[in-house]
């Protein structure tokens, strides 16, 4: 399958008074047509910054993309002019943000927010845009679309607003949708509705999806391939089944062991990862996970482990990636 998005050695840094924050520190991954790729990690690991970099939405200053390549459908995203990137945003790569409360404009009607995009990108006239907006709301499961178009975001519930966000993302039939924690602010039953909707739309229309999340259950259900991030780097990459059944990085293993699970008998104690994530201004020459790692050896303090193959399409950035064997049994 052809990759529509290739991110290569992307580096995004923030230049703050406290020092340079290496928020994204050389990540490489690709997304194929119609595929769902998950980016997993905890707060501050750089997963959102990595996604915003693809659309060049990093506020400058203080942030800047300092290195790497982003190729989307043959285009070099980082070389596009501002006018050219605006034609990509929302038209060919759309974004669904976490907070449906703050990412819709409170003073515009739902209808206007949808038609504005359509008129701008697709040169539709008002009537055609209105008709298409009605159709879109129906597609994302909002009944009584005519009335909803005239309403403002505060009239809608959180789940409904997220549906509107998805309708906006879908409206120009993009090739790629980036969903940044699309369901974190929603209740479980609504979360299930929204994720099923996104999956259904992506399968039906062949849209590729990047889902950024910290929820390992969501990843297991919806992702084809998974990138696990820690401290600005991808530390493990593979298919969902590889990541869940043969985790090959101590951090992935730790994440899987620290969530209580409904599909297993209750255990007496959880097995958390001790310690705190590192300060991204203070990274040293070794592996960033080393202080919290049970498997750390002397070499981990001296050299940053590169992302190397442990299996077919399965990569891990750990010097001891082949020594985790007997411990993996506990997570699978």
């Amino acid at each position, binding site marked *: 399958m052809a990759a529509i998005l290739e991110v290569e050695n992307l580096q995004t840094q923030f230049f703050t008074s406290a020092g340079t924050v290496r928020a994204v520190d050389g990540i490489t991954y690709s997304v194929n047509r119609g595929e769902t790729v998950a980016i997993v990690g*905890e*707060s501050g690991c750089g997963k959102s910054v990595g996604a915003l970099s693809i659309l060049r939405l990093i506020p400058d200053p203080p942030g800047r993309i300092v290195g790497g390549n982003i190729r989307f459908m043959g285009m070099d995203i980082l070389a596009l002019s501002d006018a050219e990137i605006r034609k990509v945003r929302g038209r060919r790569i759309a974004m669904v943000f976490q907070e449906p409360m703050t990412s819709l404009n409170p003073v515009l009607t739902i209808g206007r927010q949808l038609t504005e995009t359509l008129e701008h990108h697709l040169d539709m006239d008002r009537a055609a845009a209105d008709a298409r907006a009605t159709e879109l709301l129906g597609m994302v499961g909002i009944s009584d679309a005519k009335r909803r178009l005239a309403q403002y975001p505060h009239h809608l519930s959180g789940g409904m607003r997220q549906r509107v966000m998805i309708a906006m993302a879908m409206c120009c039939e993009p090739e790629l949708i980036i969903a940044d924690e699309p369901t974190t602010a929603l209740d479980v*039953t609504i979360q299930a509705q929204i994720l*099923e909707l996104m999956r259904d739309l992506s399968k039906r229309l062949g849209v590729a999806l990047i889902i950024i999340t910290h929820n390992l259950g969501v990843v*297991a259900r*919806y992702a084809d391939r998974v990138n696990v991030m820690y401290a600005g780097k991808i530390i493990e990459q593979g298919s969902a089944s590889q990541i869940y059944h043969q985790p090959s990085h101590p951090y992935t293993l730790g994440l899987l062991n620290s969530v209580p699970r*409904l599909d297993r008998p209750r255990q007496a104690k959880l097995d958390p990862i001790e310690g705190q994530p590192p300060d991204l201004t203070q990274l040293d020459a070794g592996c960033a996970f080393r202080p919290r790692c049970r498997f750390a050896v002397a070499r981990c303090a001296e050299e940053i482990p590169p992302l190397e193959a442990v299996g077919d399409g399965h990569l891990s950035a750990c010097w001891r990636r082949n020594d985790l064997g007997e411990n993996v049994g506990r997570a699978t």
Partner: protein
Amino acid sequence: MSAQEAVPASGVQKGEVLLDVRNLKMYFPVTEGIIFHKVVAEVKAVDGISFQIHKGETLGLVGESGCGKTTTGRCILQLERATSGEIIFAGQNLAELDANALRPWRQKIQVIFQDPYSSLNPRMKTGDIVGEPMYVHGIEPDAGKRERRVKELFSVCGLPVKMIDRYPHEMSGGQRQRVGIARALSLNPDFIICDEAVSALDVSIQAQVINLLEDLREEFGLTYLFIAHDLSVVRHLCHRVAVMYLGKIVELADCDELYDNPLHPYTQALLSAVPVPDPDIEAKRAHQPVKGEVPSPMNPPSGCVFHPRCPSAVDSCKSLIPEFREVKPGHWVACSEV
């Protein structure tokens, strides 16, 4: 007279009823007008719920946003005075006490809030935050002794003792939540309400805090009301679980019983909506997300409040309010079709 002498030690033995909530109702008025606040409607945030919590036990209270779980916690804490109903804690009905008489009881019931960012005063050092309740309640008026006790609480909660001089913004989310826990423990409470206490934390930190809460429960013989929306965390931590929907408890059972054998359609829907971190299991599971959204508690549906979303609703559900009954020992459910 120091405050704590006014209240007899709770004297409740392990396994006995510590908290008995009977037919609790909390209605918030919706008003119109600027000068004359005319009451035009009522939000029935909590609408007649009853449950008991035994000493040493953890009761989970789950449900989606707006179902009244936090309001229930606030009523028990007497941060809201309930519209009606009884809240009997260690034999005393808290709902009938006035503010002065309540004061000593407040020591016995403490709370850990969800948001470790907004529940700590940003202008106080964390050591002072943890020490303040002891000062306010006159438990440890001596500053030196109080500091010793604060240090002790810090180490009990897994915080480096030198952090007592830090401000909340100098700490991570997990550390702040530990400060919140230390503050709740400072008065030696019998009962702690954890209101979404681990929801805002990252997975690896969340596991640390869950383990801490469990250790403290054993060490100090605490009783918890654990309010949460994360069903996997509740299953891990709780002995019994109550499921709330639109101000009512729809199901209450022992933890394993509820998860292995959920009877109410809403509980079943909640459980099936939680994705499991295993792609093979997920590939085989059929997801049938429950339709629609939670209706407004200002205008709840007639009959069974869940009937508009319920996959197994029959005609009578629209008019008949189902009775909350015990279908087998310890397993209560409010559904006429069970």
